[in-house]
């Protein structure tokens, strides 16, 4: 056997086949709920299992929008997630820069404090947060979700971005400042573009966390029109009935923005996570 053929066979068995198996295992649930979302309710449970939706129907999508108000849930989730991501990224860039570049009293303590916040389960601060927002008149208001999600995601994103800033030599900014840049300009024109993959990775982290957040959305909203997608999806599972078709259709809709975002930022994400992984 030729050496190249042998190499090819080895690569097929050690690389391509395992990758194909992993890909199939990962994609099968996606295929299954996509398939279920186009099935009629009565045929979802029928045996033998049908691997293609026969008869094909879009009723699940139609009823999801008409009777379950998914359009409202979708817009609410989109608003909360996008605004939260903007706030988190903007504040985390400034906080991350400060932690990375400046020496100040209690720096280690601040860093520790940021880490500690990540260890608190959300439910623990639910009641105090509810009381605060209630006094501020923010219950039943999507801004309460923006504020809480920004607060929850900010520490981790700040730590993450500070790692990326540390990877850029300060001499780069100094050179820009010698050439006449202000500090702010040198940060935003020189350093930020350099760490863009890291910023995108942090933004994606904040967006997905907010998009999937359930506990605060359920408890802070007492008006069905203000519910977000995760709460809307859980309404598909009744105590004694499960609308599998609607649930699958809702999941497809909920997944679309996340998929689109990840397709677009994939290249940044891999770079960002890889470079962030080696920073101290």
């Amino acid at each position, binding site marked *: 056997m030729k050496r190249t053929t042998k190499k090819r066979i080895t690569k097929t068995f050690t690389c391509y086949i395992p990758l194909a198996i992993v890909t199939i295992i990962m994609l099968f649930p996606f295929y299954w709920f996509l398939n279920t979302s186009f099935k009629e*309710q*009565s045929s979802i*449970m*029928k*045996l033998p299992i049908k691997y293609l939706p026969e008869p094909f129907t879009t009723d699940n999508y139609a*009823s999801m929008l008409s*009777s*379950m108000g998914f359009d409202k849930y979708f*817009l*609410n989730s*989109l*608003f*909360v997630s*996008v*605004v939260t991501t*903007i706030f988190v990224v903007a504040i985390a860039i400034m906080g991350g820069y400060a932690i990375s570049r400046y020496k100040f009293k209690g720096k280690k303590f601040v860093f520790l404090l940021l880490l500690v916040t990540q260890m608190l389960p959300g439910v623990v601060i*639910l*009641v105090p947060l*509810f*009381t605060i927002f*209630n006094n501020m*008149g923010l*219950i*039943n*208001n*999507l*801004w309460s979700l*923006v504020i809480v999600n920004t607060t929850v995601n900010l520490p981790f994103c700040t730590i993450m971005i500070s790692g990326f800033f540390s990877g850029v030599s300060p001499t780069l900014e100094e050179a820009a400042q010698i050439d006449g840049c202000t500090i702010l300009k040198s940060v935003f024109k020189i350093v930020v573009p350099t760490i863009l993959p890291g910023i995108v990775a942090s933004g994606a982290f904040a967006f997905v966390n907010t998009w999937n957040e*359930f*506990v605060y959305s*359920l*408890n802070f909203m*007492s*008006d*069905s029109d*203000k519910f977000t997608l995760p*709460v809307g999806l*859980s*309404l*598909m*599972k*009744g*105590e*004694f*009935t*499960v*609308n599998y078709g*609607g649930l699958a259709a809702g999941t497809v809709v909920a997944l679309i923005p996340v998929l689109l975002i990840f397709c677009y930022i994939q290249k940044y994400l891999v770079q960002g996570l890889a470079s962030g992984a080696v920073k101290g």
Partner: protein
Amino acid sequence: MKKKKVVSILLTSIMLTGMLAGCGGKSEEAGSSGDKQTIEFWYHDGNANSNAIFEELIAQFEKENPEYEVEYVGLPSDSYLQKYNTAIATNTVPDVASIRDQDVSALINQGALSCIDEDFESFEEKEHISESALNAIRNCSVDGKLYCLPQYTQPQIFWYNTTLMEEKGAEIPATIDEFMEACETYADPDNGTYFYSLRGGAGSLDNMLDFIFTYANQDSFFDEEGNCVLSDPIFAEALDTYASIYWNGWTSKDSVSNSYKEMVAEFGSGTAMGIANNSSALAENINNLGEGNFTNALAPANEEGIVVTKDVPFMGYTVFEGAKNREGGVKFLEFLVSHDAVSYFCEKDGRVPVNDLVYEDEWYQNNAYMPVYEEMMSSETVKFLARPLWLPEWSEFLSKVQEPGLQAVLMKEKTSEEVLQEWAEYLTNAQKEYLESNK
């Protein structure tokens, strides 16, 4: 450059839409909306069907009572209690809310529910609401008072796939012996089909209790001294018999973690010919199997011909202690348990009504499934087992003690004797503590 502009416009529109949506909160004070008084109402199982039912019922109520406006919120059934607890802790409870029987005691003990005994006395249809359902509610509190009112009950019964049984020549088992024989005869693990789908996961208690108490022919958890009877050897024999369905492969391997949804899916897909569940599985069975392909029947009896089943499980409505509009809340509560509302709800949602005026309604008399429940309520061979809903530890017992215990028996990690002993000790301690604190 163009791309940047598009992104900016998109983000600005989202921000503006959100600001409008987010800041568009109601400016009225809680409890009033112009000339109308607001009644805030939360329902614990806000799916598409129940939301549509309440839309209709609320419109009817508002038409009859133009001075009120009802704000309805349907909640996810698996996390509704968390929402209630947050509202209680922050004093932002609704006026009226639905509540499941197993959660009533804990909320009464928190002082969250308002006593409605006096209000109930003035209800026009008070004589028509099932006394046994009212007693089940009174059992939930130390003072024996009413803290909620029932709308429907969910009796525990067996569901059988008659089409499949006809094909296989199977008959509905009348006794436990016949049931075990059917489980053995019609189990076909090679093809993944069985006679019975055992429930070993969340909510496994009711099926198991009905089986072992019927087998042991006992209908009380505690003896006169407050000791739990589960440590009696007859229960170990009963639990061994029940678990043997799993040990012998007469039910699917997944049964050990089956909750309601998985069990009903096994029944709906034809994997199992029979399941034990409450009456509320009807809607799901119609969806999965279609009308005419299944029926309901009493659970298999013991050698004495007796069936022991859990006492009237109810779903009710309560007025919160912190209600901002208690008067309106009580008015709406009266409407929710009235003939019109109960009849409409039970017909559309496939529930068993507890207002006896409904029994005369045409839909009820033509309903194929109701005669079994009527037989159950009136038969002398059916005994009811009062679950200790009054114990504050009951919910914890279900999730943290009973469920893992049953799974340990099914997986042969513990013996039935060991597990029953643990359960008996837990419940005896809780009961004695309860009796002591209420002396």
